[in-house]
């Protein structure tokens, strides 16, 4: 009997000791998690500040380069020969390109971090609004047809980025002399909506289909671009619970399918 009691006491004490150890290590772990979270938040804030400062400071000299190149072109006027004019144009083009790279890279890093609250969006109205504000999407520069589109559950700013990039590409990547013809249509499947942007451009070889969605990957050096647009499109679509796919072959245009959530899917 005494032995049994002693054994029980021993067990109880052991359990208490173990519980105490567990509590202590929980407290330690808690502290460590808090520490690490704080450190992570700090470095995130530093990173954000860094990219912001870099952007600001990098763009200032570019503004000056573009400005002075244009000013020189104006001041010298006819006194400049064709070669000289070409050099100045190249300075301006290079500065503009750098500026685009910086702003695009910044939009990308923002979209990775930012909250994208979702709400029902009339994607058709959004696209018509974009078409109305840019002459590049209107005749005679381009023909864009938009079929009736379903309402989607998305972030309006995110959708604007997606479709401005896809439309911009659709009218840009055409052979010289061809008028871009873009068709936009959509379909409901269960729980999601697919919107297709279809063009009559140069098309993309199948082996490039995955690469075009990666950062800084460009399809052709003959067309101006930063190689960020489609990476941005994919990242935004994924962050809104969707995705993007490409069907294309060289010379046959592109079909970009953007998958988005349908409004009812949110409640279900």
């Amino acid at each position, binding site marked *: 009997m005494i032995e049994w009691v002693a054994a029980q006491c021993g067990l109880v004490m052991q359990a208490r000791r173990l519980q105490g150890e567990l509590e202590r290590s929980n407290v330690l772990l808690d502290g460590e998690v808090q520490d690490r979270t704080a450190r992570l938040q700090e470095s995130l804030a530093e990173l954000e500040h860094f990219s912001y400062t870099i952007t600001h400071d990098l763009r200032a000299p570019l503004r*000056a380069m*573009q400005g002075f190149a244009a000013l020189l072109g104006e001041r010298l006027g006819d006194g400049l020969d064709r070669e000289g004019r070409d050099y100045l144009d190249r300075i301006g083009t290079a500065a503009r390109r750098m500026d685009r790279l910086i702003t695009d890279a910044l939009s990308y890093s923002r979209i990775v971090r930012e909250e994208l609250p979702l709400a029902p969006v009339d994607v058709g109205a959004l696209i018509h609004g974009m078409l109305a504000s840019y002459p590049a999407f209107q005749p005679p520069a381009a023909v864009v047809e938009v079929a009736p589109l379903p309402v989607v559950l998305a972030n309006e700013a995110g959708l604007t980025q997606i479709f401005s990039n896809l439309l911009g590409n659709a009218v840009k990547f055409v052979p010289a002399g061809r008028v871009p013809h873009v068709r936009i249509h959509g379909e409901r499947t269960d729980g999601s909506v697919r919107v297709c942007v279809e063009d009559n451009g140069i098309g993309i070889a199948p082996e490039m289909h995955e690469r075009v969605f990666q950062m800084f990957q460009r399809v052709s050096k003959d067309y101006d671009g930063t190689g960020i647009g489609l990476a941005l499109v994919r990242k935004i679509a994924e962050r809104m619970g969707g995705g993007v796919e490409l069907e294309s072959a060289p010379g046959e245009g592109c079909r970009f399918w953007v998958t988005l959530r349908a409004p009812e899917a949110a409640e279900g």
Partner: protein
Amino acid sequence: MSAPPTLLYVEDEADDVFFMREAFVRERVAVDLREVGDGALAMAYLAGEAPFADRARHPLPDVVLLDLNLPRRSGFEVLEWLRARAEFAALPVVVFSSSGRPEDRERAGRLGATEYVLKPSSGLQFNVVVRGLRGAGFV
């Protein structure tokens, strides 16, 4: 003919100041443009402290054009300091920044900026800014 309005341009980029002066000339808008290169100098100018104590030589501006990213004191700090003073409550302050971040725009608005103008990507496009200032009746 009345004297041209005084504009205080708070800007640390000398090239931007160059193009702003150029833009006023091109747009044929007469202005007495005063420049200071950082936020602390802007405060000293407005407060009439050294080296700007002589108001006859350093007149109070009719409008302030304010960059945000500045040495010593930021544009936000200048804005906050200025709006806390009754004598500058009605002074038009146009923020002129290369930041398109919505939070910067909101913060500037909250602190009392009259307008928020995005810096064009080329110095030679500053004319747009001058036209905007003229359109709003600031110069």
